[in-house]
């Protein structure tokens, strides 16, 4: 039987981690596949340790980003740079759309408006997670659960998460 997406990802990860372990010796606790999966889902009780290791290892970050894409519900690839000059240009795919609007009361605040056409049970009941992948860095952005297929977040203009979402070079990944 062919392995499913997650199993395949796990196999790859285990192989790479194993090779890494052989090539390096380190006193640090090895990052397990499950650690990254739980980090993606936001379930790690103490994510800081994993994040520190992620930040120290380009290889780990690449694996993390690949895992995110493998577990994704939908993706929006980086935009062609010339396609827009609009700083608040959104994304549109068959599965979701992401728009940005400035608040009329506090102009330094911007809404990120996410619309999911066919949401999963998790997205409707719990929360919605987007990843903005840019330069081997994965920014995790959580939105409240959907109401009528929509959810939104409000950011200060200079919020790093917003900047990554807006950046046309980011790959936006929607988790199930």
């Amino acid at each position: 039987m062919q392995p499913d997406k997650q199993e395949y990802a796990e196999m790859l990860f285990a192989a790479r981690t194993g090779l890494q372990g052989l090539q390096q010796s380190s006193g640090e606790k090895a990052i397990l596949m499950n650690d990254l999966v739980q980090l993606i889902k936001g379930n790690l009780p103490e994510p800081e340790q994993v994040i520190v290791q992620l930040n120290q290892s380009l290889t780990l970050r690449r694996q993390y980003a690949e895992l995110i894409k493998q577990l994704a519900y939908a993706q929006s690839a980086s935009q062609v740079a010339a396609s827009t000059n609009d700083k608040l240009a959104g994304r549109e795919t068959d599965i979701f759309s992401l728009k940005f609007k400035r608040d009329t009361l506090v102009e330094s605040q911007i809404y990120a408006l996410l619309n999911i056409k066919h949401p999963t049970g998790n997205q409707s009941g719990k929360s919605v997670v987007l990843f903005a992948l840019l330069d081997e860095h994965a920014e995790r952005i959580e939105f409240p659960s959907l109401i009528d297929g929509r959810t939104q977040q409000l950011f200060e203009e200079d919020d790093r998460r917003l900047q990554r979402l807006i950046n046309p070079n980011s790959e936006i990944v929607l988790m199930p």
Partner: protein
Amino acid sequence: MKLHIFVATTQGVVAIQNIHDLNDADINSLVSINGTSTISAISGGYHNFVKKGSGIIQREFGGISYRVNISEQIDQGNSWQLAFYLAHAAHQQGILGNGVVQSGDSVIVATGEVNTSERRVLPVEQVPKKLSLLSSKLEQWAQLTEKVHILIPSKNMADVDESFVSKVQSVDLLDDALKFLPSLAASRSEKSEIEIKDNEAVTPSKNRGSWMLACTLLAAGLMYGGYHYLSSQAIPTQQNADLPQTEQVDDEIGAEQNTAPDEVQNDKDEIKPEVEVLPETSVEPLYIAMSAELKKNNRCETTEKIDLEVQNQSFKPVLLNQLCGLNLTGSNGVKTILLVAQDTKAVRILSSTENGWSIPLPKSRLTDRSYYLFALSSKLSDSQARSLASALEDVPAIRVTKETKRWFKSLDISSSVFSHKLLNY
């Protein structure tokens, strides 16, 4: 003078600082903390509270979506709803404060969930704890203003500690709570002048001097003319109707439920003390008087007729469980009386009798029933009544009388509006 609205929570009072109409269908209504980008956990619930269908805010106050800023996080539950509803009412009146109470301002602290279909205030949890956390704020506010109201659901009154019983007001319906908004109470006297401008019975004042003279002469005539609109024993005829007298109405009545059908709901006394004066045209004044047939010996087989006192265009409330009949008479100019339910906005042309008009009594007597009565200078057809009902469908309840009067004006029909409430206890 501002009205500051606070939510009583188990962490202390939370101020509703401002409400901003986002006016954007793409953006859901939200609650943010202190104007920052931090969204309250109740944002989703607030969005549902606003939107048509599940909510009430859009239905009653219009708008598309709102952003409300509050001073502290509110984490969960629905007990913020009553305060938020009142804040929207205050915002619509232009009097919502920012939570920083100044001398002479008014304060409302509220806790309660809202049944958005029935416009009822539902009980909530931990009311004693919420009240206990108010003490220091109450002391602080007492230095600045006497006008502090603490509103809790009537079904939570049993939970209230003795020390707080005299300080809190219980509310069962949203309309009960709305009465604590200062502007609604004040505007009843202020708006009488504005209403004169809208009222078809009043001449557009090209010539204010002679108009004022007419007012003065009329007032003098009424005062000294020795009119008695209704005797305490008899219902006046249509021809004899004029200014109502202040009659004592017996409200001390027991408890029994009976039947009768109607369509009216909830009290939102938008009626202002409209003082109509004779215009310079030939349009006759439009006054109505109401009398109630009340049970004798708890049965409707024998009844006692009581004239209902009217004040500021509002007839004295009557207990439903003692009511056998309601009758109206009108001044000579009144050709039709239209009943409009305050909540459902159902419209009904009242049937005329040889002595005037009769008001059909409600089928259900389990809740208070409130309605408007429009005395019209012309006949109205059924199709016109249906057309009015359709026009009122999307009108927020708080604007029903104004929009109805505008509608009549567009048909060149003069109107006077009165209100009445039938009580279920």
